[in-house]
Structure formats: C-alpha cells, structure tokens
C-alpha cells in the first residue's frame, strides 16, 4: 500500500515508523531537512524535502497513485489544503488532522468529502474522550467497547485484595463471565495460557459483557473505591477544554493554570460548572486549599511530560485514587506505568493508531493501540470458508501472542473459550501483540 504522510512532526514520524515496520510504501514530506535527515537512514521509507502544500513536492512524493494521504502538519488549514491537492492529484483516500470541533459535526461530513477530504482526525478530541471514559469508571485503567458496547474490554490493576490472585487460570472455573486476554507485568505483555497466574501489581485485561462488570469489580477487589465526582485538571490545554466539554454533569471540575492570560481565555471557552484557578498545580498548599484531599481524580495536561508525571505522583500522595497524565514523550510511557500513574494519555499514539486503523484492508472496524500493553485489538467479520471456522479454537494453530477475546453472533455477545467454534458471519474481537494484525488477517478471510 502506498502511503504519503505530509508533515514530519510527532504524529507523522510516529505513524511513519509504525507503518514502515509493516512493509508499507511510506513517503514522508516535510520542509525541514533536519526532521527528515535521520529518518531515511534508519527506517525503510522515502523522504521528500518540500512543502506539503506544493504541487511539485506532492507529485514528486507520488501522491498521484497513493492509496492513502495523511496530512498531519501542526496547521489545520494547511492539512486541509494538502488533502485537497492530494485528492486533485489522484490520492484515493485523504485524512487531515484538525483542531476544530465544528468540522467534526456529522452534517459537515459531506462537505469535506466533496472538498476532497475523506476523514478528519482530531487528536485532542480523541484524547479528551479517553480521559472522560477513564474517569467514568475510575477503577478501570483502560476501557474499550466493541460491537456497539455488547462486548467490553478493560484493563484493571490488581492489588493485594483481589480475589483471583496466584491461581492458575485453568482453576478459576469453567463458565467464567470473563476472558482474560492479556496480563501486563513489569512492562512485559503476556498472552496468558491456563497455567499462568495473576499476581498483585499486574495490569490484567478482561474481556467481558457489560452486565458482568460489577462481578469483575468484586473479584478485582475494587468495590470500596469511590466514584469520581470532583476532578482537578492541571494545565489549561486544548485537551483540558475538550475534557471539560465532554464531562458528564455530575462531575465538578477545577482547572489549575499558571498563566493568567490563558486563565482568562479559558473562562471564555468553558461554562460555569468549571472553576478556573490561577496557580501552579505542583504547589502542595494550593492543592490542599483547593480540596485535593476530597478529589477523586487528578488529570495533568501541561505541555511538559515530566511535570505531568511528578504532579500525578504528588496527587497520589494526597490520596487521589485516579490519576491521569499526558505523556508526550513516548520513552517515558513505560516509566510512568512503573510509577503507578493510573492512565497515560499520548496524543501521538492515539492519533497514529486512529489513522493506522483506517489503512487496514480487511473488515476491521476498530483497532486500538494500547498504550501500556504492546498490543493491538482488532475486530474481524469472519468470512465464509475462513481458516478459523474449520475447528475449535484450541485446535487451530493460531500464532503465539494471539488470543480471541469474544465474538458477536446474531447480535448476542459470546465469550470465546478453547471449545468455541467460530462460524462464518461472526464478528470476532482479537487481541494480539503489536504489528501482528497482518499475520492474523488471513485466518479470517
């Protein structure tokens, strides 16, 4: 597949590296020789040093026969123009990164399509909805819904009080209302088999149905955790604003921002439910006076990853149960996990995995790149005569590092065990180690 990426910023480079590892034909355009220089000699991709909105540069990059054109420069209007030019030159599908909520409204979709922009992505918006989802179910680290919510997958950090520790999975019982698809232990992702056990400190990914969530809360020992009502956000970034707008009514939000001008601007952008506080979010006395001790969630969204991590650690010491940090430096993500920060938000990864999902050829409707586990989750519609339907799941030699979490059959969610036989027409949710999606696609087609 031929993919042209305009803009070698954070999202662009991350995406390019991700895709070049998948043996796609990647061309990256950017004006800055500095940004491109190191990429070409280290990754299997081509770089063109030219403006992403120049026809000459786009032509040279082979936009004319590109299957996917992705514009991810920092400037949304350039992205839109680049997509229009690419469409004009003959790119089959175009994606632009934007910063404007209006553009995303469904009624505008047709307009953008007619203007040559097939998809829009808004990383801040995606990040904000992850934050809000994380706060709604605060005892859950990560949360995904599949097939319109019939199946859910959630990552839960197990503590000493969990009821399912130190028992081999095979002894937990047969007809369990959940399926454990992965265990993340000290930075290593384990796809568990019957002999593996769960230990305190593990981040365990459960696949289950919504009605069984209370049961999982019980066995994971999370019943006494309070629900989130009071939230403090440090840093009045764009993600903070989007979060404030998406937050349900029962939550109370305070945004702490150190820049007074920005504070004034924030008051114009959010409504009265949100209190804007001018000060340094790392200052313990300010946090105390703003009631950190009875706050359930602390979200650190400043531009500085280190500050965010430290502030979350400080908030943990005040007894905040749910901490969320924006960590833009990818190398810090594992470290942040070790430091026990509840949820880590990374715009690049969110945006890149969103685009990545767009380019998968098979009938995949939702691929999420899990920030913690080096893993992908994909959905497949099982085709007639696919290899996966020939036998029971345990007798099909799926590659290592792949597990089938659950499936939707006749609009009913079914959890998959070794004895399940998958039928054509099933909608299957698969969990696999990073970059293996291409390998497992052939089992379903």
């Amino acid at each position: 597949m031929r993919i042209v990426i305009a803009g070698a910023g954070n999202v662009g480079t991350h995406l390019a590296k991700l895709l070049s590892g998948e043996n796609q034909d990647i061309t990256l355009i950017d004006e800055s020789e500095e940004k491109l220089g190191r990429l070409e000699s280290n990754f299997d991709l081509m770089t063109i040093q030219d403006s992403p909105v120049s026809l000459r540069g786009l032509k040279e990059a082979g936009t004319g026969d590109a299957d996917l054109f992705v514009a991810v420069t920092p400037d949304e209007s350039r992205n839109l123009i680049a997509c229009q030019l690419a469409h004009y030159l003959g790119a089959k599908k175009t994606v632009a990164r934007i910063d404007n909520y209006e553009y995303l409204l469904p009624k505008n979709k047709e307009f953008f399509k007619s203007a040559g922009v097939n998809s829009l992505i808004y990383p801040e918006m995606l990040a904000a909805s992850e934050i809000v989802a994380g706060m709604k179910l605060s005892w859950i680290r990560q949360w995904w819904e599949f097939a319109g919510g019939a199946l859910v997958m959630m990552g839960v950090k197990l503590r000493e009080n969990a009821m399912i520790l130190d028992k081999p999975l095979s002894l937990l019982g047969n007809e369990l209302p959940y399926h454990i698809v992965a265990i993340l232990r000290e930075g290593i992702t384990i796809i568990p088999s019957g002999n593996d056990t769960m230990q305190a400190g593990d981040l365990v990914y459960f696949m289950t149905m919504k009605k069984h969530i209370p049961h999982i809360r019980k066995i994971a020992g999370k019943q006494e955790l309070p629900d989130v009502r009071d939230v403090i956000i440090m840093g009045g970034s764009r993600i903070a604003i989007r979060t404030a707008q998406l937050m349900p009514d029962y939550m109370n939000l305070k945004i702490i921002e150190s820049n007074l001008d920005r504070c004034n601007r924030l008051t114009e952008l959010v409504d009265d439910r949100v209190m804007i506080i001018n000060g340094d979010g790392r200052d313990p006395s300010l946090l105390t006076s703003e009631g950190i001790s009875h706050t359930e969630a602390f979200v650190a969204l400043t531009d500085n990853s280190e500050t965010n991590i430290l502030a979350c650690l400080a908030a943990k010491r005040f007894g905040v149960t749910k901490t969320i940090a924006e960590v833009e430096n990818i190398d810090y993500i594992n470290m942040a996990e070790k430091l026990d920060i509840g949820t880590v938000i990374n715009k690049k990864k969110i945006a890149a995995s969103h685009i990545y999902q767009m380019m998968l050829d098979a009938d995949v409707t939702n691929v999420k790149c899990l920030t913690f586990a080096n893993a992908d989750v994909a959905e497949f519609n099982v085709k007639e005569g696919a290899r996966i339907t020939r036998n029971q799941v345990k007798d099909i030699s799926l590659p290592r590092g792949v597990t089938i979490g659950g499936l939707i059959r006749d609009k009913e969610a079914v959890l998959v065990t070794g004895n399940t036989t998958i039928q054509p027409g099933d909608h299957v949710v698969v969990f696999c180690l990073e970059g293996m999606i291409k390998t497992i696609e052939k089992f379903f087609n």
Partner: protein
Amino acid sequence: MIHPRIIYRILGILLLIEAGILLACSLFPIFLGENDLFGFIMGALVTTASGLVFLLAGRKTGHKEFGMTRRDGYIVVASSWLLFSVFGSLPYLISGYITNFTDAYFETISGFTTTGATIIKDVEILPHGLLFWRSLTQWIGGLGIVFFTVVVLPVFGVGETQLFAAEAIGPRRGKLHPRIGISGRWILTVYLIISILCTVALKCCGMSMFDSVNHALCTAATGGFSTKNASIAYFNSRSIEYVITIFMFISGINYGLLFFVAFKGKVHKLLEDTEFKWYVLVILIFTAIVGISLFISTPYDAADSLRNALFHVTAIITTTGFTTTDYTLWPPFIWMIIGLCMYMGACAGSTSGGMKAIRLAILIKTMRNEFHRILHPNAVIPVRINGKVIPQSTRQSVLTFSIFFLALVFFGWFFYLAIGVDITDAYGTSLSCLSNIGLTIGDHGCNIPWDDMPTLGKWFSTFLMVIGRLEIFAVLLLLTPSFWKHR
C-alpha cells in the same frame, strides 16, 4: 548497542552467497577442462563451512528481533568487505596461480573495491574461470558487496536500511521508491542493462565473447581489470576504445538518474542535474587540455590526440583505470592534469571512486562564497545543488571529507616513503589506491610497480582501497574507540 549474533548471522548468509558464486565460476573449468576446478570447488567448500560456522554462532537470536542498529550496520559492511576478500582469494591460492596469501588477498580486494591494480604479471596465462572470477569481483564490488547480495537475495528481512546506509554514505539522498529493497532492485536492473549493452557493443566491435563479457563487467563496475596484459591497447581498435569510453562515462553517472532516463524517459532530470553538469564539464575541460597538449607535443594527429585524451581522462575520472598507452611517456604537464583527475571521481551513486563530482561542486561553491563574504560581510549566501539549498551540516561534512581525503593521500605518501618507495611512486600509489583507480603517475610507467613493493606496502594498499571504496568514514569509524564503548 552492538548485536554480535545478528552480525554473525548476516555475515554467515553473505559467505554462503559467495560460496554459491564461486561454485558458479567452477562451470568454466568443468566445461573447458582447465586446471582451476579444484581451486573453485575447494574455495566454495571452505567458504560454505565458514559461513555455517558464522550462522551457528549467530543462531537463536530470538523470534522477535530488536533490529539492527547503525553500529551493527557499519560492522557488517566493513567486515563483509574484508571477509569476502579473504575467501575470494582462495581460488587463486588453491589453484596455485598466486602463490602467497598477501598477493592473492591483494588481487581480490583490488577487484572488490574496483581499483583494478593487478599483482599478476602475466594475466593471459590464467585459466578462463579465474579470469572471469577476477572480473566478477569487480562487478559485485561495483555496486557494493552488501548492496549486491542483499538485493539479489533479500533474505534478511531486517536491517536492509542500516546496511545500505552504512555502505553508501554521501551527500546525495533521494530514493527511487519508498522501499529500499525495491529501489535496490531497480538500480541493479540499470547495472545489468549497462553491462549487457556493453557486452553486445564490444562483441560487435570484434572482441571475442569471453573478452567482451569480462571487459563489460569491469567497465560497468568502473574497475579496470583486463584479460590482457596490455589492457585495451591489446585490441588496437578505435571502435573498442570509443565503446569503452562511452560505457565508462555512463557508469560514472548517478544510477538513480540513469533509472529515470531509461525507465521513465525523464531525460531532463539528468540534464538539469548539477552534479552531472559538473561531471561532463570537468571531462570536457580536461580532455581539451590534454588533447591540445598532446597535439602540440607529440606526433599524434588531431583525431588520435582527441581519442587518447578522451579515453584516459574518462578512464581516470570514472576511476576505471583502463589504458591504451603508457601516458607517463607523455609530457609531465599532462601527468599533472591526470593527477588532478585522480582526485575527482565521477558522480555519487555510481560505481566510481574518488571524491565524487558533487563534493567537488559543493567545495568549489563554498570556496567561491568565501570571496563573496569578504565583499559583502552581512550577506547570507547559500550553496545550491539542483536548486535546493544545501544544509550547513552537509557542507561541513563535505569539507571534512575533503580534508580527510587529502590527509589520507599524504599519510599514504609518507607511509610508502617510509617503507622505501620512490617519491613519485609513493604519491601516485597512495592516491591511486584511495581513489580506487589502479593506475598511477610515476617514473615506472602507469602501472604501479607492485614487484618492488614490500609486503607491508601491499597490505597498506588494501587498507587504503577499502577506505576509499567505503568513503572513508565507514571504515575509520570502526577505528575510533568511542564506536566500541557503551555496549
């Protein structure tokens, strides 16, 4: 991080490929019944065994590779050139046509680096198989050993990018296709086409089939090994000289540009290329100077002067090193011009050696800018290549490269002097080896007097050849302590 197992495994695979090529060469003695069969078969066996040892040392690298680092790439490239030459020398040694290891190793590395300096006094007594292997080393080395093998047999899956980057560094970037493997295959196609066309052209000019193939291989690689002692002069044919001149010239052009001309019909891309213009211009100017001085000072008529001048200037600038006559018998003024040509080399991304025309272009433009700067102290003066401003860092690395190149020529000069070589020969040999030409300027004629060279000098020459072929830094980098620290 250095990953020894990955390195061992890649080297193992490379050696197996070399064993395969050696085995293919044994077809000549099988069909012609010559006495070098044993050399090839034994050589292939020893190489296979060594390759297997390397593979064994590099086994169990885990199912998920962490991938090659840049350091791994540099180590693989440098050591593959050395290893290939060690095992490539086996046929000469085992068949007994070269009796000591130093000479056999020298001959092989002179082949792989496309230098074309030969240690064999009488090549015409060599059997066909050995002659073909000799030419083939040049053809393989022309594009780069690692490049060639990786493109022909893409068996590694990982690390191609790092390997290519380590073997072909230079101021020119720009791929033909987003995937480096496919770019490589296109370039190899261009190379094949040049070689085949050259073979056909030489055959048409009356060369025997075997000689045509050998000379075509060595011309496309800008190597310069000949199957005849007298090089091209043996054939005494003007048409052959012109054919070889043309193909040397073509092989000195950037292969990426040749691809665009041959497969996409974009001739303007070639004609508008700054480096190509410089390359043509330099050849024309030097040919004119040499031609006129030949016409004035020798009994040649105008046509002969032009032909001789064009042939030798092209042979030297493309670092091929074929000869039709001993140019050291010409006036010393012409030696000077030839000496200058030796530094230059042809285009980056071709099979030639030397400093490369693009570096010369950047260097001269930078020098010109210095004068502008004196007159206009506040001016911001860019260096443009193909209409694009060259970043400061590239200019700096071009300057560094040039200084290193000069320093190495002088270092080599001193070294040869120290081991007792004549002053002009020492200079010519040093420059010739570093630029991968194979011809020299000196009192003993245009061929380097290898007989008088001490063993140490021969080893030093192989070192210079590899340094020059891998554009200095890739080899010298391995000699710096910091490369090996922080494992």
